[in-house]
């Protein structure tokens, strides 16, 4: 079995009107055995920028610690919050540093820049960035997610509509994947705040 599919994960991010959504499933397994149903895969950097990582659990945890360190140092040195595009490039360099012994994760970055413009971006395990204009997907149910997102996404979705679209895309995609699921966490990043909701889907 692929090392990227060992623990199982699915992440999706979508652009809306003045907002972005990023959502992930909650399962952590050891191949077919489910160990935990509340594993965190999406992390916040500040109240306008979040990122998620799909792939090997240990690398998700190691990198979340490394990115926390790098962004904290950035904030101390620059005396301002990191912009989403800058953070995406930071993710890319961090991953490419390990080009010949990579971290087994696929990150997705989602946030609002300093002008309130929505930004989403995904990368592969060695840091090749993809600046999407509509949605980004990653994980064991990525192919299912591509199909679902293509169906439910429209341009300029309001926050509540975006929440509904993202939730439906993720829940239905993971229902066809045995390695991801067991609930979902959806974050909507708007100009004033981040709205976080936990969904109970098919718990299998």
């Amino acid at each position, binding site marked *: 079995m692929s090392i990227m599919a060992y623990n199982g994960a699915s992440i999706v991010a979508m652009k809306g009107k003045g907002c972005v959504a990023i959502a992930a499933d909650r399962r952590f397994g050891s191949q077919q055995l489910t160990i*935990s149903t509340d594993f965190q895969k999406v992390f916040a950097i500040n109240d306008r920028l979040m990122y998620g990582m799909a792939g090997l659990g*240990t690398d998700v*945890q190691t990198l979340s610690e490394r990115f926390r360190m790098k962004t904290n140092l950035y904030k101390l040195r620059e005396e301002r919050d990191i912009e989403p595009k800058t953070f995406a490039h930071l993710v890319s360099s961090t991953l490419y540093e390990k080009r010949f012994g990579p971290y087994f994760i696929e990150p997705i970055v989602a946030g609002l820049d300093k002008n309130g413009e929505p930004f989403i971006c995904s990368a592969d395990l060695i840091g090749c960035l993809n600046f999407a204009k509509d949605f980004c997907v990653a994980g064991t149910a990525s192919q299912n997610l591509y199909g679902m997102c293509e169906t439910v996404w429209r341009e300029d979705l309001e926050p509540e509509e975006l929440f509904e679209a993202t939730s439906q895309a993720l829940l239905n995609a993971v229902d066809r994947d045995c390695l991801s699921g067991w609930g979902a966490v959806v974050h909507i990043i708007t100009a004033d705040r981040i709205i976080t909701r936990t969904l109970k889907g098919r718990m299998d």
Partner: protein
Amino acid sequence: MEALFGIVGKDFVIVASDTSSIRSIVVMKSDEDRSRNLNKHNVLLYTGEPGDSVQFVEYIQRNAELYSIRNDVGLSTLGCASFTRRALADALRSRNSYQTNLLIGGYDPKDGPRLYWIDYLSSSLSVPFACQGYAGYFCYSTMDRYYHKDMSKEEAMALVKKCIAELKTRFVANLPNWQVKIIDQNGIEQILVSAADV
């Protein structure tokens, strides 16, 4: 063939490990202690590659002791788990990685009882109940069925015995003796349970 499990109760954690040391078809030892006390309120249980496990776990134990000496207070359970995860993760992509699966159970006066499941790849999870090894394939279902939040010591002990009984019925290896530790605010209490009694 080794089995570990842990269950978080109301204000205690109960952890159990089998005491048989088996290599291929031979039972080498039946009173193996697969745990180490990190400090007054934290226990680390391990399975995996024999040499790796002991080397790594004793390293963690000694560092936990050093922390206590330097700071005059024991490491919290989260502290133990974080330190262990970091040490295992750093070793993972180096010349010597450790093939060790762990459970860390402890009682923290501030956070209460906690149980951490850490696999050999160094993924760390805080869980209400957990198994390491083949035991998971048999005992997770039993725990899913009978576990509830804030179990009493009697209920948790009964659940541990149900799990041991499940392994006795369905697991190919004979695991006759178990070492059970209960960690609460008073410290660590050790009980030996025989599979014949469950």
